[in-house]
């Protein structure tokens, strides 16, 4: 630790920015994809009344939880790797549901 951080701030150890950005960006992508899967494959079908509202709300908790927990990853690149894989998987499933369901 050098001194006590920059101008008045507490120390942030390395990778905080990479981890945080991974959580912020990929967390949103994962939340959006999961909400889409809920809307398309969840009970009642895509046209159930008011379901689109729940699908909209569903984005926020997933997004925020991934964002908040992204700092648990051992390093920035690992965060991007794991969350990126998860986002690709979710959006792959969503695309599949649009093509075949």
């Amino acid at each position, binding site marked *: 630790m050098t*001194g*006590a951080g920059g*101008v*008045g*701030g*507490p*120390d*942030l*150890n390395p990778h*905080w920015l990479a981890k945080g950005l991974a959580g*912020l960006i990929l967390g949103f992508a994962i939340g*959006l994809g999961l*909400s*889409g899967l809920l*809307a*398309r494959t969840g009970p*009642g079908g*895509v*046209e*159930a*009344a*008011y*379901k*689109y*509202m*729940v*699908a*909209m*709300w569903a*984005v*926020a*908790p997933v*997004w*925020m*939880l991934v*964002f*908040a*927990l992204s*700092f*648990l990853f051992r390093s920035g690149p690992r965060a991007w790797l794991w969350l990126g894989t998860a986002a690709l998987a979710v959006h792959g499933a*969503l695309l599949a549901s*649009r093509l075949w369901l």
Partner: protein
Amino acid sequence: MKAAIIRLYKAVHSWTGLICGLLLFVAFYAGAITMFKEPLAAWAQPLRAGVALRQAPRLIDQVLAERPDAADELTLELGTDGGDARLGWHDPDSGEFFEASRTAAGALAVAPPPDSYLARSIDLIHRAGGIPGDRDFSLYVMGAVALLYFLAIVSGLILILPRLARDLFALRAGRNRKRMWLDAHNAIGVVGLPFHVFIAVSVVIFAFGEPILNLQDRLVYDGRLDRIAQIGDPFAAAEPSGVKAPMLPPGQLLARLRAASPGFEAQRIVYIMPGDRNAVAMIGGRDPAQLSTGIAYARLGAVDGEIQDLSGLPGHGNAWNAWASGFTALHFGTFGGAPVRWAYFLLGLGGAFLFYSGNLLWIESRRRRARRAGAAGAVQNRAAQSRAARAMASATVGTAFGCIAGLSLSIAAAKWLHGHVADLASWHVGLYYGVFLPALAWAFARGAARSVVGLIAAAAFATALIPLASLAAAFVPALGLWNHGGATLGVDLIAAAGALALGWAALRTRRGLASIPRDSLWFAGRRPGPATPSSVIDACTRPAPI
């Protein structure tokens, strides 16, 4: 968990708290007040005569006969506790709202309703976190703040988890002030945890819901969202028949709905195409036993009284509707009646305390670290650190007590301004910033230690002005002010209690500052002699030599 991860979360907690704390203080304090916006709006303006529910059908007929601008939609606001109802409509061209009443001679009188704008001004300040200017901009800022605020919640929880069982509710009062503040901060944070999670999640949706829906429209719904959203919407248009028919009196419509949904408390009837044979009565209200949004609507035929659609009502629609309205209700506290309102009021005040105490705790930890760094001889960091800590201390006390004083003065002024100024909304917002900004400036100019007692006292004084306005109304009738009793008395009582609590806090703070160690940022006295080398902050808070 690894120590490095815990350290990172500690840093995340500090940074997010520092970045968001001040805006969140304003949002939570003003939000707590909006829990009582109905009594507040009533407190702020004189009683208006409306129309008795029995007389409403005649008034409706009169309006429909004389006012073509009311032909699309008419709203009958039902009086609470059997009080008068009010009949009004929006002019479809100008958007202006009119209310109808009958003169003593039985003629129709039409005028825009008087509005205190007080509750709405406080709501605006609440939504914007006190950021003046463009509403969309401040909403996006608050959405981003809510994301960081959720980080602060999770990181705070991670920090406290290991100690949770041991000393959560141990409020170690006594000589170690920092320990006591930390205990209070932790206890209030954990007690309010679910509330804070709901608030953070819902604000993200309020801010980013539109863009999210637009993205989903393309990614999920293949551009069909507009049509999907219409499904199940009870307001979806009906076709006018062009044939006139008499509508059932409101009392009968309400009785039909009560039979179908007993727990429902109706607040208004919106007539669509009033007077037409296909006229629709949308009865809006809430069911205190259910988690529901502000107002849910049932759809009835206004002519035959037949119930057409109850799916909008809590407990009647599908599960998706229940979930969607439940999320919104969790933000606004619109369920469970008065106990939940009070709980939300207290949780809101508790949230404000959380951000205030969090900032103070950070400042204290700066002092400790600075002292250690001083011992280690890291000289170059000292000045920058203490500057940041001092600025944060000034911003914290200036924002907190400037916000309280500004809102209190804005409320207290409502009775005096009503009927005397044209643009009430601007006055309320202007009074708020007219107090808030100078308070902030004063805190920076004098420094936190030497402004905090005065700021708390000013907040106490401004809050005391609220019940004083009501006392003036009671004892000096010549002023032409008013008191309505009932829930509006609660406004005066809460304000009086708040003023007393703030007055007590001012006295305590003054006493506390007198015994503060000299190396503290809160040391307000003069320091004779040379700077003590034990603390860097000490040197920087010393009055500058003249």
